[in-house]
């Protein structure tokens, strides 16, 4: 068993335009499976991954919101969203597919500082 660390995963890309966000999600689940203490931080366009009512099969992709709804099966519970990123895009937390903790940029920075390692996607 490998050592358990606090790992923060920063997700900054919108889904679907390329495979960046999808592969970030794959990496998140893999790192979670290896017993690491994960915190997910959705910033900027990354919050589009969290929107409800995605129907990606229409563009031959896997639907993000469905995969993200499975986070609780992986015991991924520390999920943070930047309040400013939401405000800039006029998105409220009601439009998101899972429960998140919404934080001001200064508090997001604090969460980042608490991590042993940050992975940025």
């Amino acid at each position: 068993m490998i050592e358990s660390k606090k790992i923060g995963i920063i997700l900054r890309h919108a889904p679907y335009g390329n495979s960046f966000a999808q592969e970030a999600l794959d990496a998140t689940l893999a790192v979670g499976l290896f017993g690491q203490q994960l915190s997910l931080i959705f910033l900027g366009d990354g919050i589009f991954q969290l929107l409800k009512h995605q129907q990606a099969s229409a563009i031959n992709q896997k639907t993000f919101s469905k995969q993200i709804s499975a986070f609780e099966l992986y015991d991924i519970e520390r999920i943070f969203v930047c309040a400013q990123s939401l405000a800039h895009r006029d998105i409220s937390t009601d439009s998101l597919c899972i429960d998140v903790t919404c934080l001001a940029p200064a508090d997001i920075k604090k969460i980042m500082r608490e991590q042993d390692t940050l992975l940025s996607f």
Partner: protein
Amino acid sequence: MNFSLLITSPPSSQASYSAYQFARALLSQKHSLYRVFFYHDGAYHGSSIQCVGQDEFDLSEAWEALQKEYTFDLVVCIAAGLKRGIINTTEAARYDKQQHNLSEHIELSGLGQLADAAACSERLITFGGSCG
């Protein structure tokens, strides 16, 4: 200090050159490099059949030389690699493909190697994270 690198950009990106230069700099300053994990389009680093122009820097050759000098892991994510046509003999046989192209000095392995690098290194530095 013990470092690992996560490279998500292809060899055509400046970020990939910066990653190599960073690796060289840290090794020359007596730090150690545990693993370089190529993910996303970084998987293209695994191709042994890429040919660069005669007057251009050969990144693949440079990584190989650096690895020979200092010894560290060069790992292409197997899922990311296979999707992009980066494949070794074992996987070519498994998926019934006629060709294989993985560079000899690079391994094809799972995302567990990234989790392990994150857990075992004092610093994990991402290159190419903002592309795309």
